[in-house]
């Protein structure tokens, strides 16, 4: 089996599993309890907070543990919206290809009277800092731009955007779910006011994440009912999950240089060889891209059948085709970078990890080439393209 869908989720690291299991066995106390068993669980929790905070250059009290990236995104945006609203600011700037955890929250706010500006991400999948600056108004409450895109892996100019937001005194949130543990991040140097993260994207457990919110930002609760997380997120803390997340993040960041070198070389080989397929195109900028991400469109074929056939060959990947989402429209990310529907349906995302071997890379290349050719062999669209009845787009 070749797992090439690490942007969907990752395999847990052994150290994280060990940490989680031992805590589940031994530290089952409730951190809110006053007896020793509870207080030692509290210690575990606070150690994890310090660790996570230290890694991103934050203070422990600026970290709120959540159920994952989506919750963190929701809480960050709702918080900024409420802070803005209190000052009469009801304008939010984001981009067209954010994760739905961001876009759907913005939709909800739009119904409540907020005005949303979604910036163009251009053909290369990159937000332009100067366009952020131009979009900021007197009544802008928040700028929220993802650190790296989950489908096409493009890395946004976060530090520059952050600097503009600082200058204009607008809150800046970034959904760093795909970036943290994969890229160096420091909230101070990168001018970030709020940041969302999800543990299972960096080999930690699922159902855990965190929100960094700079000191002075009073979070608005999404979940009421207790004093946990300084009263900002009720519910007994997932101590084993949180501690395992901290271990996984620590490991990922300690190994970041090796990871980048190793994985990026494999990514580049995949991109180089898959590009040889005629009438295909890489989605997203070639340079400003996650070390693990490869995303292509192939003309004349549809993504779901591509995925199923790759699965038959033991390769797990992902696609932005409509058929994989259960809707009629292909991925909003691919549409946002200007891919037309016809082509966007034929997309393939490979997201590799350090476990991907050189041999795996060659198997993927060979398999993708075979499957694309096979599907084109009985595609009526491909026939029309080849015979000249229709013009190639790619």
């Amino acid at each position, binding site marked *: 089996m070749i797992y090439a869908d690490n942007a969907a989720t990752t395999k847990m690291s052994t150290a994280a599993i060990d940490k989680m299991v031992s805590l589940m066995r031994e530290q089952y106390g409730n951190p809110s309890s006053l007896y020793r068993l509870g207080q030692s669980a509290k210690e575990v929790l606070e150690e994890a907070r310090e660790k996570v905070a230290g890694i991103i250059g934050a203070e422990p009290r600026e970290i709120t543990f959540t159920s994952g990236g989506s919750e963190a995104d929701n809480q960050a945006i709702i918080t900024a919206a409420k802070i803005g609203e209190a000052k009469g600011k009801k304008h939010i700037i984001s981009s067209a290809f954010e994760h739905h955890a961001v876009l759907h929250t913005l939709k909800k706010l739009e119904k409540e009277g907020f005005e949303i500006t979604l910036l163009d991400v251009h053909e290369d999948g990159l937000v332009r800092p100067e366009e952020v600056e131009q979009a900021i108004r007197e009544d802008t409450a928040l700028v929220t731009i993802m650190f790296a895109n989950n489908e096409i892996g493009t890395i946004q100019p976060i530090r520059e955007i952050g600097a503009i937001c600082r200058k204009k005194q607008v809150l800046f949130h970034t959904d760093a779910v795909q970036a943290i543990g994969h890229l160096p991040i420091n909230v101070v140097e990168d001018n970030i006011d709020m940041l969302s993260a999800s543990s299972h994207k960096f080999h930690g457990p699922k159902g855990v994440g965190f929100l960094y919110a700079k000191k002075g930002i009073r979070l608005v609760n999404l979940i009421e009912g207790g004093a946990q997380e300084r009263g900002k997120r009720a519910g007994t803390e997932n101590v084993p999950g949180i501690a395992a997340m901290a271990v996984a993040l620590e490991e990922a960041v300690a190994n970041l240089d090796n990871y980048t070198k190793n994985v990026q070389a494999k990514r580049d080989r995949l991109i180089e060889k898959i590009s040889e397929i005629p009438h295909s195109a890489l989605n997203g900028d070639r340079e400003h891209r996650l070390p693990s991400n490869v995303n292509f469109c192939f003309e004349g074929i549809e993504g779901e*059948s591509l995925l199923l056939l790759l699965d*038959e060959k033991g390769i797990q990947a992902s696609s932005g085709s409509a058929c994989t989402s259960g809707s009629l429209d292909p991925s909003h990310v691919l549409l946002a970078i200007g891919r037309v*529907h016809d082509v966007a349906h034929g997309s393939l995302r490979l997201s590799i990890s350090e476990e991907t071997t050189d041999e795996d890379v060659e198997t993927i290349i060979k398999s993708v080439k075979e499957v694309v050719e096979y599907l084109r062999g009985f595609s*009526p669209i491909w*026939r029309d393209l080849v015979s000249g009845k229709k013009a190639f787009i790619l």
Partner: protein
Amino acid sequence: MALYSEKVMDHFLHPRNVGVIEDADGVGEVGNAKCGDIMKMYLKIDNDVITDVKFETFGCGSAIASSSMATEMIKGKPVSEARELTNKAVAEALDGLPDYKMHCSVLAEEAIKSALEDYEKKK
């Protein structure tokens, strides 16, 4: 649990009657690339009996499987019978499709109807 039934996977992985009939008596194409599904059916008809059928499909696994199954269901059958083929029958023959994939079986039914119409026109 797999996404599709074994039957769907069988027809998807080993599609029957794939290809083109150059001198077809009826050709039908339905669907559009924008929605991600196009099916094209080619019929060879002799004495109002479908003697051969081929298909080409651009689409997901269930679209390919539906095309394949539909061609099997009408091959060797009189035109009158092929005209009665419903999407439900195709889906049932595949041991069911997920709800949001039922439109694939509809496309198969429509592709055959469209090819038969073409045949009637040419006759």
